[in-house]
């Protein structure tokens, strides 16, 4: 029961509201706003598959850093895709402040000026920067709070997922990367095996044998170490033990190339 409750809480912990009044699946009004360059533009375009709306505050450090990172690492990769990105800033900021923000960041996307924060109020934006990903009809597909780590990677993955370029599993792996788990013994064994291969290329058979044996003491489930040791035993004309090593390698990994090659000359074949 305790685990069930914990799981429920953990699940709910990942479900926070980016927009107070708009949830995934809701269709948003397609506001028409004046842009920073004096044109008029809408929040969404029905001629693209994915619309991305980003709420910025020009005088806020997070917005400035996120905008610069988007200009450098996100916008260039989306140039030929069916994606339209727009930024939204409040008209509480002067045209000079908005222009400076755009120029310093290097953003190419249109910046829509939100008169009296009407769009902010309609969405229920409570922090900045905040990103909404919409389809061509303005239906909210997903949203993303600002995060100081992996923000651009995650926004890019959200866009690619909604373009159909990556799977849900690949998206989830970006949103919640699994903490690196390093198998130290396997790494050490692989390094020793690689060194043994190099030594054998230099015709240092005994030293190579020593290294591969060392590799097997670190990890005796490494198939390629067994088959390589088998090859060394063949050079030493110890065919009986060599065949044993090839057999062990193939038991651990039936596709092990050196094992398959070596076993061909073994008596039971």
């Amino acid at each position, binding site marked *: 029961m305790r685990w069930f409750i914990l799981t429920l809480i953990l699940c709910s*912990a990942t479900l926070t509201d980016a927009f107070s009044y708009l949830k995934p699946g809701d269709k948003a009004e397609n506001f028409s706003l004046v842009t920073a360059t004096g044109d008029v533009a809408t929040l969404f375009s029905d001629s693209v598959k994915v619309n991305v709306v980003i709420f910025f505050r020009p005088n806020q450090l997070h917005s400035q850093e996120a905008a610069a990172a988007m200009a450098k690492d996100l916008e260039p990769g989306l140039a030929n895709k069916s994606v339209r990105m727009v930024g939204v800033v409040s008209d509480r900021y002067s045209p000079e402040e908005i222009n400076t923000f755009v120029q310093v960041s290097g953003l190419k996307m249109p910046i829509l000026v939100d008169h009296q924060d009407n769009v902010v*109020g309609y969405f229920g934006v409570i922090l900045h920067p905040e990103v909404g990903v919409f389809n061509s009809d303005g239906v909210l597909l997903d949203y993303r709070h600002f995060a100081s780590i992996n923000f651009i990677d995650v926004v890019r993955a959200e866009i690619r997922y909604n373009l159909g370029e990556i799977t849900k599993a690949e998206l989830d792996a970006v949103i919640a990367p699994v903490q690196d788990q390093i198998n130290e013994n396997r790494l050490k064994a692989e390094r*020793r095996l*690689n060194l043994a291969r190099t030594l054998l290329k230099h015709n240092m058979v005994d030293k190579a044998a020593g290294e591969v044996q060392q590799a097997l003491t670190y990890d005796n489930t490494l198939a390629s170490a067994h088959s390589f040791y088998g090859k060394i035993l063949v050079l030493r004309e110890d065919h009986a033990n060599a065949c044993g090593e090839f057999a062990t390698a193939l038991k651990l990994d039936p596709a092990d190339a050196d094992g398959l090659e070596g076993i061909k000359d073994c008596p039971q074949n």
Partner: protein
Amino acid sequence: MKRFLGALIIGLSFLGTVAFSSVAPIPGAKFEHAPYSDRICSLCHQRDDENNPGPINQPDVNSVCMTCHDAFTGTHLHKAMETNCTNCHNPHNSNTERFLRAPAPELCVRCHTQIGNIINNSATKHGAIEVGKSCLNCHNPHASKVEKLLKGLPYDLCVNCHDNDNLVDHNGKKLVNIKKLIETKPYVHAPVAEKDCSACHKTHGGDNFRLLVEPYPATFYSAFEEKNYALCFTCHDSTMVTEPQTTNLTGFRNGDKNLHFLHVNREDGRGRTCRACHEVHAAEQPHNIRDGVPYGSGGWVLKIHYEQLPTGGRCAKTCHTTREYKR
């Protein structure tokens, strides 16, 4: 004379660089790299002569390393590794594990000087840098799926240590078991949901209480001033509390009367602030509204009974009589 001094400074700087860049074997070092230990110089060099091994036998250092070591892959790669493994490792021997040219953090801050300054000069230290593998407790020095070469998302790393009932800060003050606190509450603050502890906390050291990136009062009752809650306004727009009337900037309003403004701008000095109503990590009530507020010196907590309504909310018999708001 000036010219002489200038030449001397340049000369000494160069010598310093040479000393730093040298990867010559260290006499009597504790750890030896296998090829060096076996004195098979030709595995990496052009000759098998220990006294005169000659240049390396590949066009660049990393190609030599990759004859035995597998290349590291990841979305984010360490520049120092990409340019030259020997930036960090002595390929012969070392007194530090993994043949590092110095232990962390000393090695890391040779390049990451700003981080070094923060570690050395901050008023509030982070224990994570001082225990275990130091920088390598949180960072993978080769490659990672996460920015800043983190081994995982900040929260996942932080709770490796902050899942402990007995952790104390540098002043001996007990720290809350943050994992337990967060994972037993239904409502979490946005950065917590994003596993982004570093949105609010500096991880290498800082000058604010609890390593916060911007000021936030250490004590519960302190009068509201925007600069004292600068932490909150790194993400939230301060207009949500500074505008007396709004229909867009906050949902905590009665019609167009901004109730954030009303709460924090009281002249009775009772300290109704962000902290008075909201928990910063996780809470039992919506909008991260805290369970209660400490009252008096006896440790009594005055409960806050908040109820969310379809177009507003209600606070019942807490700091004031029951009040309801409607947007």
